[in-house]
């Protein structure tokens, strides 16, 4: 028996001298209150109330117990309130964003890995585009995100970056699906491209199309699609291709082909605000790299030109 709670019931009934009013004050119904008072009386081995159909009165024992019960509660309340404040401070919610195209099993694994490492932090995971996450991180509506690079990092910290090679989804009955070691971007010529809408991640969108152009793939048309089934439909028709990571193809009529040299490797960056990062930041970043790996894509070796006009590249950097 929770003695403290039962003493609370006793005090309420003793003050109201009416089970109905006491129950209302305690936000409960009358029968359980009556049962609990009876239980308290059994536990203590004394009668606390004289009950008649018309009124309730305190017994002598009840009158003697009342001030003692109040004294006990007055000493217990501060302990309970302190404990509840400490609970509130340690159990928190981490609002985290992931990109819409992340695979379902990755999301499940991410939730599991985070729950295991941070049982006291509730993970509020939201599917959201890079642009929307970027905005939400800036306005404080999101604590951490997984965004497609590149994006403007002002005010943000870019933590671990996951590199994922992208291949091509092509129609299984089309010429691009014929067995060969790897595809080149220039092999895709003549096929339309299906991609996410530019506003979802503008700089990544531009990066993809610039890379295609550089490697000799100039899609006759670019279709912007939000959903996987529309993308799969256009690919199935044989007129279009789409880029994606190596996972199970979305449809039986679609196959995934590797791209030679990983020209389109996707970079997913765990990102959080520079000011006042959430206490769950490090654990979430670890969970992301644990689930998605960090990977490594061949990075281009930048060659600076004078017209870049960089203010003060450190001494010697341009002495080539």
């Amino acid at each position, binding site marked *: 028996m929770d003695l403290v709670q039962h003493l609370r019931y006793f005090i309420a009934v003793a003050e109201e001298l009416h089970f109905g009013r006491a129950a209302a004050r305690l936000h409960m119904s009358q029968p359980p209150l009556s049962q609990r008072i009876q239980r308290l009386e059994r536990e203590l081995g004394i009668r606390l109330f004289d009950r008649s159909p018309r009124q309730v009165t305190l017994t002598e024992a009840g009158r003697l117990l009342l001030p003692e019960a109040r004294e006990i509660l007055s000493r217990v309340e501060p302990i309970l309130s302190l404990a509840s404040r400490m609970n509130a401070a340690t159990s928190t919610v981490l609002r985290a964003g992931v990109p819409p195209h992340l695979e379902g099993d990755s999301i499940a694994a991410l939730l599991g890995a985070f729950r295991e490492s941070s049982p006291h932090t509730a993970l509020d995971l939201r599917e959201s585009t890079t642009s929307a996450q970027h905005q939400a991180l800036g306005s404080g509506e999101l604590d951490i995100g997984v965004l497609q*690079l*590149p*994006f*403007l*990092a*002002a005010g*943000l*910290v*870019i*933590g671990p*970056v996951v590199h994922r090679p992208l291949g091509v989804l092509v129609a299984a009955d089309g010429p691009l699906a014929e067995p060969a070691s790897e595809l080149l971007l220039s092999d895709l010529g003549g096929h339309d491209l299906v991609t996410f809408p530019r506003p979802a991640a*503008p*700089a990544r969108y*531009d*990066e993809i199309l610039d890379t295609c152009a550089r490697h000799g793939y100039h899609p006759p048309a670019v279709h912007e699609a939000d959903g996987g089934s529309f993308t799969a439909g256009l690919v199935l028709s044989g007129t279009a291709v789409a880029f994606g990571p190596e996972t199970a193809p979305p449809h039986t009529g679609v196959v995934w082909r590797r791209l030679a040299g990983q020209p389109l490797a996707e*970079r997913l*960056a765990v*990102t959080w605000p520079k000011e006042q990062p959430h206490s769950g930041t490090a654990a979430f970043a670890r969970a992301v790299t644990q689930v998605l790996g960090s990977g490594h894509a061949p*990075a*281009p*070796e*930048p*060659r*600076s*030109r*004078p*017209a*870049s*006009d*960089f*203010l*003060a*590249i*450190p*001494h*010697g*950097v*341009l*002495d080539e």
Partner: protein
Amino acid sequence: MNEDLRHHLGSLFAGAGVTGCLHAIDLDNGREAGLGADTPVLMASAFKLPLVLALFRAADTGLADLAGQVRLEPGTRTSGPTGIGAMTGPVTMTLRDLAHQALSVSDNAAADAIADHIGLGALTATAEAAGMAATRIAEICRDVAARTAASLGTTDPAQLTRLLTDPAALSRLATLDLTASNRTTARDCTTLLAGIWKDTAASPGSCSAIRHLLSLQVWPHRLASGFPFDDVRVAGKTGTLPTVRNEIGVVEYPDGGRYAIAVFTRSAATALNLPRADAVIGTAARTAVEYLRRG
């Protein structure tokens, strides 16, 4: 200010993969146009314009001799991608020609030599006198270089160049932190340019000389790219840091129209070569100027 214009400018910047701040003013009737004109922005090498102005103001009052010669030794001068900063031997040059180098090719060695000659105090006093109320200038090129190396934790040239295009490294680059770097606003910069074009920022002779130096700038890819006309004069000063591309300048039309323009951009992409981000500075400036010219 015209909402359509602001919307147009915003979509131009977004289409080029940047966020941008712009202010343009008709130097003769005071009409203005802009987007984020009072938003604090990183100044980068655009600080070399108030620096050269400070030198000419010092010369106006006899505190500096523009014909005086300065010797710059390779081991001690500031390095950079252009001008004396990229050379290998000792150079002796007049202060007037150092100003030419600092504005025409954004020479870091020349700029720091001028700053050492007149002192940082003269530079901040000049910015204040020029009406640049929201501007804070507290460092010169070699400070930026030192903070870049400290932020990235290396002085190895190859590694530094690689890190300057690495998004994660750039997110901790202190020189991109507005609160800790030379900063200004687009409006402050058009105020500065207006003073130089109206002969109020320094003596008329000095203002005229600075206008000439600005017209000798070699870069064609930003502001000038928006005005591909032989009879339009473009005089400007660029500023560049990783993801930062700026230019401030004045465009003069054959009919006498004169417009001061300041454009500051930040790109999402970290690549060194982003021709669309450079070109949108010219396109946005042209859009604003045409708006002002429609009257």
